[in-house]
């Protein structure tokens, strides 16, 4: 019988682990990563449709794309039928395509699962449905894990958020797509476990007596909460679960929107809607690469020549046309992470015509994401109310996921439950570990 593993397919990071009945073994699926057991959920597809994931994908993307040359050619994209009162005719539609583009980097694949307005994407001459993108990613991860284990992996327990979406139909669709992708990636048997429950299973390993626990899983894409009774073996109970699609990527976006856009001309360009649109697209990781058209470049160049915020618009041009957005998002994310342990951080970037430096404090960050605090608190209290327990009846609040370390939310948990009850786990591996435990137990049944 083949192996069964636990696989956390996260919005920002993923990981694979296996449970032998006693211990969890986190697999170092990304040797190039700072933490080899955690790999970035990014997929890079080249022009000849070869793919790679994780740190390797990032390095390949950076090597081949940043500051590269571009050459636009006109390509036939299709035709449009015009039906007039007396006349019908067909018109060819052409698009400008950068024929030197070596590949595409895709991230936030998990978020794409819940978007019904995002059926997939065109990568050069081929259309990739969302399930195919996820399938390619999972297949790579499976292969890496098999190489480490020296055995074929047959089955998997995949983590899933409590709610992919608040819409039940979208939620079911996202799970179905993930299952389909896992099957197509070569997993013969696929089952799911809620991510906060998985984190609870990992936490439960350390328990000496039964506890009522709130699992607060706050990652890159969603916040998942579960209120559970743990430490009673098979009597484990889920009193309530809840979630909301607020997480780390929203905070990155908030930082960019509130603090970074002036570096690219916001506030300086007031009467140029087409340029304002480009500036507003900076936080949008899907839209930004698509804006690198010759027409937009001409618009920016014209404005620069006219002396309209030339330094800032040059920076915007460099960001769009030198594929520097990924580097930029990473700098913003790095500053956000620093603010979890420090009162101030610097978001800086110097490349091509970009020379930005911004001192960013925790006070500013908390101000920028204050709106999310209310929502998170509301979801948490609603879930707790649904469980029928009062905050005083909670023995432990288990934090997992990178965003759970943000002091604003940690402070909220301390305020609601008391500092002694808030427990730290390994933010990046506890869900994977719990999934492995679930997989190991299910396979041994």
């Amino acid at each position, binding site marked *: 019988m083949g192996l069964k593993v636990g696989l956390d397919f996260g919005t920002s990071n993923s990981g694979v682990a296996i449970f032998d009945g006693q211990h969890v073994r986190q697999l170092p699926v990304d040797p190039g990563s700072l933490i080899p057991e955690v790999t970035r959920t990014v997929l890079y597809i080249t022009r000849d449709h070869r793919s790679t994931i994780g740190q390797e994908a990032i390095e390949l993307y950076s090597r081949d794309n940043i500051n590269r040359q571009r050459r636009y050619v006109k390509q036939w994209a299709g035709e449009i039928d015009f039906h007039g009162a007396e006349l019908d005719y067909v018109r060819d539609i052409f698009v400008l395509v950068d024929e030197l583009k070596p590949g595409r980097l895709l991230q936030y694949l998990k978020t794409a699962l819940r978007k019904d307005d995002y059926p997939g994407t065109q990568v050069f001459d081929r259309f990739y449905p969302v399930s195919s993108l996820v399938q390619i990613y999972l297949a790579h991860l499976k292969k890496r894990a098999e190489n480490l284990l020296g055995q074929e992996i047959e089955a998997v327990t995949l983590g899933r958020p409590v709610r992919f979406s608040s819409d039940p139909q979208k939620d079911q669709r996202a799970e179905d797509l993930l299952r389909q992708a896992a099957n197509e990636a070569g997993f013969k048997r696929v089952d799911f476990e809620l991510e906060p429950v998985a984190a609870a299973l990992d936490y439960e390993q350390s328990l000496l007596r039964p506890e009522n626990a709130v699992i607060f899983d706050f990652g890159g894409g969603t916040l998942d909460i579960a209120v559970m009774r743990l430490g009673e073996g098979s009597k484990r109970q889920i009193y309530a679960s809840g979630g909301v699609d607020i997480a780390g990527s929203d905070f990155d976006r908030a930082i960019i929107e509130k603090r970074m856009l*002036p570096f690219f001309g916001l506030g300086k360009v007031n009467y140029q809607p087409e340029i304002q649109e480009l500036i507003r697209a900076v936080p949008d990781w899907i839209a930004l690469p698509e804006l690198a058209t010759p027409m937009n470049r001409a618009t920016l160049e014209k404005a620069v020549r006219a002396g309209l915020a030339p330094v800032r618009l040059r920076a915007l041009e460099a960001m769009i046309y030198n594929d520097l957005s990924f580097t930029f998002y990473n700098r913003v994310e790095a500053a956000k992470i620093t603010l979890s342990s*420090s*009162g*101030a951080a*610097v978001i800086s970037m110097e490349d091509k015509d970009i020379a930005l*430096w911004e*001192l960013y*404090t*925790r*006070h*500013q960050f908390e*101000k920028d994401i204050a709106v999310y605090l209310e929502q998170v608190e509301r979801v948490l209290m609603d879930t707790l109310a649904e469980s029928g327990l009062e905050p005083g009846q909670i023995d432990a609040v288990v934090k997992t996921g990178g965003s759970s370390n943000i002091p604003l939310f940690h402070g909220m948990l301390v305020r609601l439950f008391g500092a002694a009850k808030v427990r730290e786990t390994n933010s990046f591996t506890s869900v994977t570990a719990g999934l492995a435990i679930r997989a190991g137990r299910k396979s041994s049944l």
Partner: protein
Amino acid sequence: MTFSEKIDEWISEAETRPGSALMILKLVAGRLRDLTERNEELLAENIELENGSRVQEYQKQIAHLEFQLEILKRRFGEGNNESQAGQDQPDSLQLLVFNNDGRLLRLDPGASSWMDLREAGQLTGQFASNGEYPRLLALSANEELLLLFSSGRVATRKMSEIASFEAGTSWEWEQISLPEAPHGAESLVGIAPLSELAVSQFFMQTSRQGAVKKTLCSISEKILSNHYLGRGAVQKTDQAFEVSLARKNERYAGLSREGRLQNLGVEGLSFSAEERLKLTATDHMVAAFIIHAGESLLALTQTGKVVVRDFASLETGKSSSAHGQALISAARLEQGTRFIGAAACRPQDLLVTLDEDGRLAVHPVQEVTGAGAIQSEKNFVGLGRIPVWEKKA
């Protein structure tokens, strides 16, 4: 958000968490240090601008561009909009006959056209100097000439400064003008049309023994003001043979008397003189020029035999020193066959030949390549090309 509002926020952070104050201070100080360094760099740059060293650099560049513009104006004649770059028809081209003694004979087709002139005239007297026969070059009447001497010295002369004669008659060589007499033991070895300087990137020099050297045209102003380009030779016994102007993506071809051909990409050539063709002690170069796609290399033996090689069939030399491609077989070499000249031609062009009796004759390239030879009772000693541009409809 204004900058002062931003500072207020930093202060708020320091007030909320006093521990952050030190961190903020460190980060701001680091930024201040970086900005101070940058400011110093900018001030230094400003000083350069103020004291003129940067201005001098720009002035130099402007002077060079103005110089090139001037050359172009002279080439095409100011205000003459009818003539366009490289579009001289053979009727407006004049034939320059020059020898290493420095004499320059300018021949004008007059009322006739070069295409109609089969007999272009005859040189009489001692037109061979130290065993070297005159060389032939067709140039525009508005051209400015770059004269290269065997010592590496250069001089410039306008075509219009050279006495012009109508083609079709005969001229006593000793009577021909000497616009720039060679100094001491030097001799005139090559002439290049200076109007091409503005659109060229390199001076290409070839030595008599097959060494090749390129020099950047960007320093042409200095070269011309110093009147020195260099010999372009490696061996002491060697001397300059030819100079031409080239762009980096062009191809250079050199042919020796004994039929050794070297074809090289200009970009790959060295800025120092390098022996690119290994010649025997009895051999020396007879032609060196830039060849373009669409042209053929046409070489002429002393007996009138014509050898043609298409641009595409020319092997590009890779090694720094080679024997080149042999265009004369060993058997023919033994029989005494030798090349007297070569040129890059297109089918519509004309050739002009000089025989040992001093007769100058014009031949259509198509006719010559069709027959494979040029008939003559006397041996040929010189070959030149008169370019003909197809008239656009």
